């Protein structure tokens, strides 16, 4: 069953000068127990989509979608309170800089206890605080922090970013969410902790069937841990499908460039040889090209590319390009 099903999500920013379309008709779906990667460079709108899902965008942003359903329920049509209730129960999110998402003045114990919802504590009310504490310690053990005594008494600045991110995950899983959105969870971490964290997320996915939406600007760091992938460029969905299939045979020139620009995916590439790179730079929001937004940078752009390509499907592989790459002329 589809957990999250979004069709033609459009997010626009109201500026004093104009309405800027930051996310342009993006489809996104997530099955139960799936880990999906959402890859895109800065300005691609990946964080906006995440924020739209949890409904925390401020008034300057305007969100519209043809379908925006969470387990069969249309979220956008619900009242604000109902929306918050569902999202608060089922969806959790962790951010890029964990030390900034934690309360800097409160001890970890307090913050963790607060994250545990009441309905998960079964026991008479006089045992509540004890149970809460037990639960908090249990959560820390689950995310792989053994030394719970000292961590619980600490204040965020005393802990490393890696530990802080683990605590964020502990707080996120406290309510047994159906979906965990991880917005660049490892950018601020050391490379040794990065792998640990991804493994942690993968294990929760396998043990509890929790779906994960993994957002990153680097394809190579999340490719190993995701089953399916959505690639965004400048607010447009360029390609979506199973990770292995996309890595093996990308149809969109942008995905192709993304894969080829990473030395890791090119085992035959000699050290110190030039990497494959698209010319030009990411356009700014006010000056987005019409039609396919990759147009000016695309190596095989043609006249037709000024029209926005529709999303096409080949088995389970979606792409939006007029001239998809095929295996032959690669």
């Amino acid at each position, binding site marked *: 069953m589809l957990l999250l099903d979004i069709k033609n999500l459009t997010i626009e*920013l109201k*500026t*004093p*000068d104009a309405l*800027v379309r*930051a996310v342009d008709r993006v489809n996104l779906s997530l099955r139960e127990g799936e880990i999906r990667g959402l890859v*895109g*460079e*800065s*300005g*691609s*709108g*990946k*964080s*906006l989509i995440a924020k739209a899902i949890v409904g925390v965008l401020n008034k300057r942003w305007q969100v519209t979608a043809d379908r925006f359903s969470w387990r069969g329920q249309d979220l956008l049509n619900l009242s604000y309170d109902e929306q918050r209730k569902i999202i608060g129960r089922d969806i959790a999110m962790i951010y*890029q800089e964990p030390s900034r998402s934690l309360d800097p003045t409160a001890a970890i114990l307090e913050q963790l206890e607060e994250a545990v919802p009441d309905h998960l504590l079964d026991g008479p009310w006089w045992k509540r605080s004890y149970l809460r504490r037990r639960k908090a310690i249990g959560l820390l053990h689950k995310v792989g922090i053994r030394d719970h005594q000292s961590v619980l008494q600490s204040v965020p600045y005393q802990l490393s970013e890696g530990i802080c991110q683990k605590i964020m995950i502990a707080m996120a899983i406290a309510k047994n969410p159906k979906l965990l959105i991880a*917005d*660049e969870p490892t*950018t601020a971490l050391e490379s040794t902790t990065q792998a640990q964290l991804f493994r942690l997320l993968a294990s929760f996915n396998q043990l509890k069937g929790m779906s994960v939406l993994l*957002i990153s*600007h680097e394809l190579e760091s999340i490719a190993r841990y995701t089953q399916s992938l959505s690639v965004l460029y400048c607010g447009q969905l360029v390609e979506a499908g199973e990770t292995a299939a996309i890595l093996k045979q990308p149809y969109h020139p942008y995905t192709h460039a993304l894969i080829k620009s990473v030395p890791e995916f090119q085992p035959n590439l000699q050290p110190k040889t030039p990497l494959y790179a698209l010319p030009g730079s990411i356009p*700014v*929001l*006010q000056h987005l090209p019409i039609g396919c937004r990759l147009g000016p940078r695309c190596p095989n752009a043609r006249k037709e590319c000024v029209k926005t390509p529709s999303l096409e499907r080949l088995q389970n592989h979606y792409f939006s390009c007029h001239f998809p790459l095929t295996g032959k002329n690669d």
Partner: protein
Amino acid sequence: MAKFRLLPDEQLARSPFKQLWREFSRQHSAIAGLLIFSLFFLLVLLSAVLTPHDPYLQNDSLLLLPPSWSQQGLVQYPFGTDDLGRDLFSRLLVGARYTFGIAMITVMGALVMGLLLGTLAGMTKGLKSSVLNHVLDLALTIPSLLLAIIIVAILGPGLQNTTWAIMLALLPQFVHGIRNAIAEQLNQDYVIAYRLDGANNWQVFSRIILPNIWEKLTLMATMALSTATLDIAALGFLGLGAQAPTAEWGAMIADSLDLIYIAPVSVAIPGLLIFLAVLSVNLVGDGLRNAAKKRREN
């Protein structure tokens, strides 16, 4: 990574100052404040030319003339005359020079001195800096009006002494603010980068620090200007500042306080002008602060 930077339009906002002006001009209240402010500023410059009568000429035949809108009033004397027969309108115009003009001079003086001392405190390290700092911090604990009164009490009353007193009273906050602004700038990466380019202290100061704290300086100056205006008026009202014949607004209110039932206009209008002057300065200051904040957010 995923932050939306809206790059400003090239034609509309090239330099940071133009950007600031663009944000500033979007706020109606700030523009209104700026208009009133410039009106007062023009008045300060041109009041000598604009006055219809000599503000100090005592006309025995026209004592306590009501304003022109009442039955007995004369058009030549729009706000009437005071108990010595001096034209109130002319006196008010000239008063702008004292209350507002001198406030501006005071702030300028304090700014220049503050910039010197603040730079010294900000760019030096160790004992010199901390001595300068803590002595001035002591002075900051006393409200500026009280400090000015103390200084006037020592120097004796008079407009010139008031000017010095207020300048000295404003100084600590300037030095403190400038020192902090400079210290904040010195921590920036671009200062280190500039030093690595081979710049010496003076070049770092003139090329980087000054342009970057300019905005803060203007902000501090506007806030200080409203304080200074109020202080001068208050000291004039208390009889410590401008002395009797001088047409300073605060002194004028004090003079006509006895006549408040006979000629309420002679108290109300100077008060209104002080209010407007301070309001306009505060509106401009608020507008600047908002604009600077908005620009940073972009």
